[in-house]
Each structure stands twice: as C-alpha cells, then as structure tokens.
C-alpha cells in the first residue's frame, strides 16, 4: 500500500461546489456522484452527461522506435492505425496476465498518445520503460491534462455549438486536434458508456473554461455532471471490462473475450502463451449473466453449479438502472460457460439462480 497523499484533479473545488460526493479512487479525490446515481445514469443513456475523468493517465511515445515499442508492449496491431485513429489494446505481462488496458492514439507515424488507467499509471510507466529496447522517447503527461467525457445521444449536437470542427466528420475511435469552447484540445470520439459522445483532452489551466462552457450550453439539453458511480454501471451494461475487476495481472485477454484486440500476426510480450490458449482452448472464460432469482451479484462472489461446486468468480455486478435487473460478469469454468446455462451466485451463503447471457446486456 502506498501512503502518499491523495491528489486533487484540477476542478476539485468545482465538483464540491456542485454537490459532488468525493471519494478516494486510484490515488485521486474523485466525484462518485452528484445528486443521484440512477438519475445520472439515465441522463447519459437518454440525454447527455459530463464526467471529469482527469485521473486517467496519458503518456506520449515518440521517435523512430515508437511503433516498434508499441508493437512489442501492446496486444493489438499498431501498424493498422492511421493518423487520427485510435485503438483499444492491452499490455500483456510476462506471466500470462495483463498489466493494463489502454487506448493508443496515432498522432503521426512517429508520435502516439497512450491513455491508461489512473490506478496503473506508475506500474504502466515502469513496465513500458523496462521494455523500451527500441530507443523510443517516453513522456508522462498525466499531471498536465484534464479529461472530460461528454457522453450521451445528445452529446454531439450539444458540443457542436461550441466548435467549428465538424463533429459528425469524426468517426468512432477517431480523433482530431482542434478548438472547442475556444480552447485547443484533442477531440476524441470514444467513451466508456456505450452511449455515444466525445472525450476531450485539455490542458489543466483551461479545464475550468471548457467545463463551464459545456455546462452552460448543456442546459437546454438537460445535461448533468456525472460521477464515477454511474460510469461503472454504464460500462457494465455494455459489458466493457474494468481493469482490476474483469481483467488483471492474472487474466489472459483470450480468457477475457479480448481476442479481437490480440493479434498474433506480429510479435509481442508473451505472445506464445496467449497463442497457445487460443489454439488449445481456455479453461475458464469471462461471461455475462443475469439474475433469475432475486439478488445482486458483486465483485468476488463465488459462482456455483447446481450441486454447490465452485465453478467461478464474479468480477463485476450491479442492479442495471436501464434494464432494471441484476446483471454481472465473471469467469466461469469453460464446461459451464455455454450461453443460456444456469449458474448460481453465492450471495451470503445462499445459492441464487442466474443465467448466462450474451454481452453486451444492452
């Protein structure tokens, strides 16, 4: 455990003034919710919400060796990226697990932006540097940038009022560098909610200007500031993995259903291990399930078969605000992992019936 003091994001005071309940998360004081988690969740699904996710980490990887380093440390094929394109990927470790999942932005053939989880900034930084036998230059710019995720079906129409950049010309998993609310930033068609919208990377000194402009123009769209609480329930409904829950140092991307970002057409850290899993089969895999009997699955609850044998572990679970039913994800022994299979979640020593369903839930 680290005992270092919690860091504040640039708009800490602003969030407190908006009534945010601030909680320690990944070393930062972060807004968990403002008024009401379910209301914030539904606002993102139906209208638009703004998340301050400035705790996220950002690294720049530059130079002739940049692509070789990224091909080696990430599982996806960076050579497929073009300028202005983004790739979801992960950093395999040498023990068969995952150091972190991340986004890779190609700014140019020799310059990339990596966006990593706040909880893993130090670990990722050390890991990538330790693998840098390619002469790439690395810079950790995490403390200089704020990140706003503006998410929801009305996000594009709303943000368009603040920028000359044609937002409809930026496809999903693409970005552009331009002005919005009068501020230079990276405008990225990404998010972690499955509700559509953009993520905006802004210098800390301009963060308040951008946030307040968005809140102002957002009034007519009924925008709400949204906390990490509903960010988690939103991502769960879409079956997006959360590092530390659904993937970690001991899970293979093949087991996690992330084979689509694991490209064996190139060499990368511990490739043979994952290739073997892919070719010869996994013993467990990440599945989605919904509760049939009443109960809410939670991280680390045991999964049982009908005889009470332990066949897996819940990695994420919640009551879904959109679906109004309890959903979860977890690793299940491959023999029990078929779609439609009945499983049992051990909730306070009661076996509560659930059914394996397809991901995403929504």
């Amino acid at each position, binding site marked *: 455990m680290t005992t270092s003091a919690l860091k504040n994001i640039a708009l800490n005071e602003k969030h407190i003034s908006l009534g945010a309940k601030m909680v320690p998360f990944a070393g930062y004081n972060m807004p968990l919710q403002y008024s009401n988690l379910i209301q914030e969740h539904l606002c993102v699904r139906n209208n638009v919400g703004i998340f301050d996710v400035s705790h996220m980490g950002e690294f720049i990887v530059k130079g002739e060796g940049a692509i070789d380093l990224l091909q080696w440390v990430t599982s996806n094929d960076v050579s497929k990226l073009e300028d202005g394109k983004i790739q979801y990927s992960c950093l395999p470790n040498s023990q068969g697990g995952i150091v972190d999942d991340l986004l890779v932005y190609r700014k140019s053939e020799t310059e990339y932006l990596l966006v990593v989880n706040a909880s893993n900034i130090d670990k990722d930084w050390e890991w990538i540097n330790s693998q840098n036998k390619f002469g790439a230059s690395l810079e950790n710019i995490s403390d200089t940038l704020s990140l706003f995720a503006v998410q929801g079906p009305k996000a594009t129409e709303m943000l368009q009022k603040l920028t000359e950049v044609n937002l409809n010309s930026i496809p999903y998993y693409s970005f552009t560098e331009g002005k919005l609310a009068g501020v230079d930033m990276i405008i990225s068609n990404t998010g972690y909610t499955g509700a559509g919208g953009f993520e905006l990377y802004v210098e800390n000194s301009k963060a308040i200007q951008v946030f307040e402009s968005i809140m102002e123009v957002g009034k007519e769209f009924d925008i709400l500031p949204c906390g990490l609480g509903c960010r*988690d329930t939103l991502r769960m409904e879409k079956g997006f993995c959360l590092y530390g829950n659904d993937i970690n140092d001991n899970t293979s991307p093949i087991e996690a259903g992330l084979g689509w970002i694991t490209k064996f057409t190139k060499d990368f850290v511990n490739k043979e291990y994952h290739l073997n899993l892919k070719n010869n089969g996994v013993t467990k895999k990440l599945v989605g399930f919904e509760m049939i009997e009443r109960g809410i699955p939670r991280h680390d609850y045991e999964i049982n078969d009908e005889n009470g044998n332990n066949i897996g572990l819940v990695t994420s679970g919640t*009551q879904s605000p959109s679906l109004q039913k*309890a959903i979860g994800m977890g690793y299940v022994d491959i023999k029990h992992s078929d779609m439609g299979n009945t499983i049992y979640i051990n909730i306070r020593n*009661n076996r509560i019936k659930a059914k394996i369903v397809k991901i995403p839930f929504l």
Partner: protein
Amino acid sequence: MNFPSELKYTKDHEWVKVDGDIAIVGITDFAQGELGDIVFVDINSVGNTLSQEEVFGTVEAVKTVSDLFMPVSGEILEVNPELDSNPEYINEDAYGKGWMVKIKLTNPSEVNTLMDAETYKTSTGN
C-alpha cells in the same frame, strides 16, 4: 436532514420506534442519503430471535452492500412487505414507508443503551 425526536438510534444508523415490547426498525435518513439509491433489501430472518448487533439482513444500493444490525435483541415478527417491489421507499421516507422490520423485544432494557435524536444527530456531524 431529519432526526425525529421520538425515535432511538444506533451507531450503525438504524432507528427504533418502541411501543411496549414491540418495536419498528429501519435505517436513518442520514444512512439512506449515504447509501444512495437503494435497489434491494434482503431480509430472511422472520421468526428468528437475534441478539443486539446481530445481522438481520442486508440493504443494497447500486454500488454498495450494507449489513443491517439489530438495534436491540428480539424476535423478527414481520418484514415490510412493500420493500420487495419498492426498495426506494427507504430513500423517499426512511422513517415511514421505508420501515424494515417489526420485532418483539426480548430484553427491553437495551433500549436505554441507544442514542436519542440529538446525540445521534451530533454523531453524524450534523
């Protein structure tokens, strides 16, 4: 925030309304505010006789699970039947529609160990 003076309170944020040897138990307005949207109440202890501070059930918000503790020893006579389909009653009306269990006290003198409204209010920082 509401701290009715006719109730007694625990450090675990339950309230008790005592009437002879019968009492109604719920969680406080402060507790429901801290938990946020309550989505599930799990109480399977009807008919059980439990000691003070034993767990009689759990209450789940979207993000959290919290145990419910007996404020005083007693037998669980009844669970609020509305909470199964309307757990949000606890958020809306913690001291009324959101009541949780009715109990028969087995050691009424324990009521004297509970906090009055003013003491409880102070303990929550209000």
